[in-house]
């Protein structure tokens, strides 16, 4: 692999420049993760942070290539190869667990005395710092690793805060939506929810049954026993509807004493008539109120999407309504299936 920006050969010990002489302590302050390698490929000394990282014993005295596995450029097998990659961007890692990865740069030492290899964690810094329990003192002040850790943590904290806010807003949104789609008195779906579902079923081309239910003698209960009795009866009707429909069905109160039910996947009118009869029977059960029994009944009109070439919400509601009034005319307390023309 070549460096993305090919550089000219590094002018090591260029003519006319005095070679610097830097002692081990100074070198350790400047580069706490350096390695000095002898001409035989053995580690002569290393920086204090790197020494902390090596868990399988002290580094000095061991062969560099035994301690590190070079990944890029191609693994050098001898010291000469290491010299060949001098000045290039190196990727290497510890052979021993936890196999910490490093970025590196090697330069030859004057007089063929070996090489100086400096290492850093690169993008693996967050994991490495956690793994090895490093502190700010393990990094040179010129090293931006600690700043990077700060940024990572600041970003995570800000992100976590945003997530928390999002969860809260999402909770509020779905509660508001639920509220907007629910009939407050009965807990059934409301007209808006019904119309949404109906439009969705038609839009997606699903087959379904639609049942329109209107209470009989409800007005009499309201007028003679008052609104409290009326509300109690509506609650009992809601319970009756909920008991007879499946989870995937929709039972909505359209207002007053009028209800519409949707049965996704059900277009068998005999089956829908049976459901209507069971619902009516439940609704006819007396509801005790203040020492008296409230007795009502219900009439139903049924239509199914398969009656239509192109079902339309308004048409289907209208047809179910016509069938409902046929039930009323025929003496109430019964269900009628729309007869497609």
């Amino acid at each position, binding site marked *: 692999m070549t460096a993305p920006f090919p550089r000219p050969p590094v002018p090591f010990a260029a003519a006319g420049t005095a070679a610097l002489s830097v002692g081990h302590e100074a070198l350790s302050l400047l580069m706490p993760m350096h390695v000095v390698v002898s001409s035989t490929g053995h580690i002569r000394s290393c920086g204090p942070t790197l020494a902390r990282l090596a868990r399988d014993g002290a580094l000095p005295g061991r062969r560099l290539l035994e301690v590190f596995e070079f990944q890029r450029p191609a693994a050098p097998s001898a010291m000469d190869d290491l010299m060949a990659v001098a000045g290039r961007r190196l990727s290497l890692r510890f052979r021993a667990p936890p196999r910490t990865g490093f970025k590196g740069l090697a330069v030859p030492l004057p007089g063929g005395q070996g090489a100086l290899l400096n290492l850093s964690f690169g993008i693996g810094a*967050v994991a490495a*710092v*956690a*793994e090895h*329990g*490093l*502190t*700010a*003192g393990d990094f040179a002040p010129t090293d931006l690793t*600690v700043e990077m*850790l*700060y*940024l990572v*943590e*600041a*970003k*995570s*904290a*800000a992100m*976590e*805060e*945003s997530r*928390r*806010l999002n969860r*809260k807003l999402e909770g509020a949104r779905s509660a508001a939506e639920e509220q907007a789609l629910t009939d407050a008195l009965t807990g059934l779906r409301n007209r808006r929810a019904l119309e949404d579902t109906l439009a969705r079923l038609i839009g997606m081309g699903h087959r379904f049954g639609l049942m329109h239910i209107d209470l009989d003698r409800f007005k009499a209960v309201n007028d003679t026993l008052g609104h409290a009795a009326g509300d109690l009866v509506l609650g009992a009707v809601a319970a009756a509807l909920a008991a007879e429909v499946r989870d995937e069905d929709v039972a909505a109160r359209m207002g007053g004493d009028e209800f519409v039910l949707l049965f996704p996947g059900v277009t068998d009118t005999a089956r829908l008539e049976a459901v209507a009869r069971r619902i009516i029977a439940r609704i006819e059960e007396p509801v005790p109120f203040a020492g008296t029994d409230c007795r009502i009944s219900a009439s139903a009109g049924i239509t199914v999407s398969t009656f239509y070439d192109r079902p339309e919400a308004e048409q289907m509601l209208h047809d179910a309504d016509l069938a409902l009034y046929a039930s009323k005319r025929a003496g109430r307390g019964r269900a009628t299936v729309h007869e497609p023309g």
Partner: protein
Amino acid sequence: MTGRASAEAAQPGLTGFEAMLIYDDALTGRVLDALAERTGLPREMLLEDLGTYLVRHPNTEAIRRLLRFGGETFAEFLHSLDDLPDRVGLAVPDLRLPSIEVRDLGPGQVLLSTGPGLPGYGQVLAGVLRAMADDYGSLALVVLLDCAGGAARLSVTVADAAFAEGRRFVLSAAAGTDGASGGIGAGPAGGAAP
């Protein structure tokens, strides 16, 4: 809860501040006024308590940790405060804090001067500094010298850098057992009152 009631008093329907949302500065002022009225404490003291809360309360542990990145010792932390507005800006770009200038007054003593623009900045900073001194285990005297026109001057004298054992801080939040789970947290109006 006093905080919630104060928020409600400042603006009907307000139940707390969200850390990641932007509010009108005047609203903050009204919440503080309402809080001062309810608690009978002066506004200055509430602002200082807010600063202390930000460092000490588990709700805002993330803030304490981010502040501890400023230095390994309290003295280093003090000298990193001129970086604080930039650091805060990196974490939350919308949050622009006035500048802080750090000047050495002698051994263990610094003078902090803030830029203008954020009323109460000096008091909150005083609270943060007192709590951070504790966090590092240092004994320090923090005096708010003045805060005329919004620009504050504080003197901080470190009497004993190793007065007590400070709270633990390790670089890695993942490796830390110093409880890095807290978020930035809701302000005092939303969370527990400081």
